[in-house]
């Protein structure tokens, strides 16, 4: 036991192939809801960039939350799957395995998923399919570029001579996005084209995921960073502008770390982030998990295998 929490190494999943670390509150802090599950970012194992998830889990556990960090199949210590699922479907199945284990081993029936970058995207795709998910903490989730994003991006780049040279040669992000959009619109690029975040189908899919999450009364805490010159987003309201018809209303808390990089490298940024998550968990009006019987009767996963 250490400073209000204790940690335990655990094996999860049907084949016990997933490895995680469970942090639990100890002593008087015991029993604050909901539980928290932290997902991998890309191929970085469960400790996260700069060990950020270790500190986050310990802080949340000391405040009373059960917190699980685990590795997706094929990441960190976890074995690869052998069932032929595509990578996204495998991640979604792993999240379900982790929640099943928490339900059975820790009597948890209400969970907040935390993810950064690809972890945020998986959290968003999974959350609305499982009634145990009451909230999502999405750190730099995928957000399509907006008109203001392009303006900000250009203004930032205009101060760099190298960017001018790249632009003049027909290179760089702006040209690439413009050419991609025009080619798709006039039909010279096939329907199989994967345009990433500028692809209108991706935008529609993300919009649908946010709508479904809100319909399930899932609370959202979205944190965006703006310090990276390469730029995923350049301003706080980009999420709202990208999805103007999604009724986020009071179910969304939105924060913008203007100077933070994508991995929250400075320790003070990570400390600030952890404090915000703590505040949000304490204040958000999570719906109580529905009656156990209802939860167990309904299909846990309606959708798997989104195209990525």
């Amino acid at each position, binding site marked *: 036991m250490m400073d209000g929490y204790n*940690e335990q190494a655990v*094996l999860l999943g049907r084949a016990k192939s997933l*490895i995680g670390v469970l942090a639990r509150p100890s002593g008087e802090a015991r029993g604050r809801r909901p539980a928290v599950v932290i997902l991998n970012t890309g191929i970085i*194992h469960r400790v996260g960039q700069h*060990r950020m998830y*270790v500190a986050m889990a310990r802080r949340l556990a000391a405040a009373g939350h059960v917190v699980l960090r685990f590795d997706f199949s094929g990441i960190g210590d976890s*074995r690869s799957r052998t069932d032929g699922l595509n990578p996204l479907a495998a991640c979604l199945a792993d999240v379900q395995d982790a929640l099943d284990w928490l339900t059975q081993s820790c009597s948890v029936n209400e969970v907040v998923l935390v993810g950064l970058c690809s972890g945020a995207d998986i959290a968003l795709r999974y959350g609305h399919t499982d009634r145990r998910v009451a909230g999502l903490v999405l750190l730099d989730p995928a957000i399509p570029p907006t008109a203001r994003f392009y303006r900000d991006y250009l203004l930032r780049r205009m101060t760099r001579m190298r960017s001018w040279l790249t632009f003049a040669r027909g290179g760089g992000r702006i040209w690439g996005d413009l050419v991609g959009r025009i080619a798709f619109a006039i039909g010279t690029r096939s329907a199989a084209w994967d345009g990433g975040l500028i692809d209108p189908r991706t935008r529609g899919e993300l919009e649908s995921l946010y709508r479904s999450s809100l319909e399930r009364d899932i609370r959202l805490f979205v944190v965006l960073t703006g310090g990276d010159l390469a730029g995923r987003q350049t301003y706080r309201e980009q999420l709202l502008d990208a999805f103007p018809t999604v009724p986020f209303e009071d179910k969304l808390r939105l924060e913008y770390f203007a100077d933070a990089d994508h991995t929250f490298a400075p320790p003070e940024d990570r400390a600030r982030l952890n404090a915000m998550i703590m505040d949000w968990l304490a204040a958000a009006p999570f719906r109580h998990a529905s009656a156990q019987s209802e939860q167990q009767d309904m299909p846990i996963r309606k959708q798997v295998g989104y195209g990525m």
Partner: protein
Amino acid sequence: MTPFYFGTRQRRLFGVYDPAQKIGKAARAAVICHPWGSEQIHAYRTLRQLAARLSQDGFHVLRFDYYGTGDSAGDTGDNDFAGSRSDIETAMAELKDMTGVARLTLVGLRLGACLAADACAGRAEEIDTLVLWDPLTAGDPAGPGPAGSAEVPRNFTNVDLSSLAAELPSRTLVLLTQDGMAGAIGSLAVEHVASAPPWIEERMQTGAIPVNVLQHIVHWLR
């Protein structure tokens, strides 16, 4: 594979134990010593794969996180060089206790190689084989130091491998995969295997497992 915590209440260490999959004439056991900082994070899966291969080849294997790193207790920055070296000694004692094997192999990558060499010195009765994979040396273009990118623990001083040579096991492999890293190796015999560094995040290489290096280590240890 068994993940678990060991060590003392004040210094809990996270480790993963892979039991030997085949036992030959005599059981063997190896402790894998991680690099430090972001290098530890980027090389994590590679060393997991090395452990799996050694396990399949008849080694009991323990890899672990130093105090204040990875999943071990302690805040980042809480540890120093001497503390990490003592963590290796704790891991060695744990593995000997778990397996009953009296003499161990140490395999260290980057700073883990420096720590392993330091921990080995004068312990011939406990450690009979040592693998130093791209040890972090003064001649290393990636650091440590202001010009380098490698993170190091507090109180880190360059380990002079050449001066330690006489105290290291007679069966010691220095394995280098990068150009220009042999500066401070001294008289130790070196083998070269070209490979992308798994401890660095590179756009097109991140996550790639250097299978040729892992095979070289496993074959050399046979």
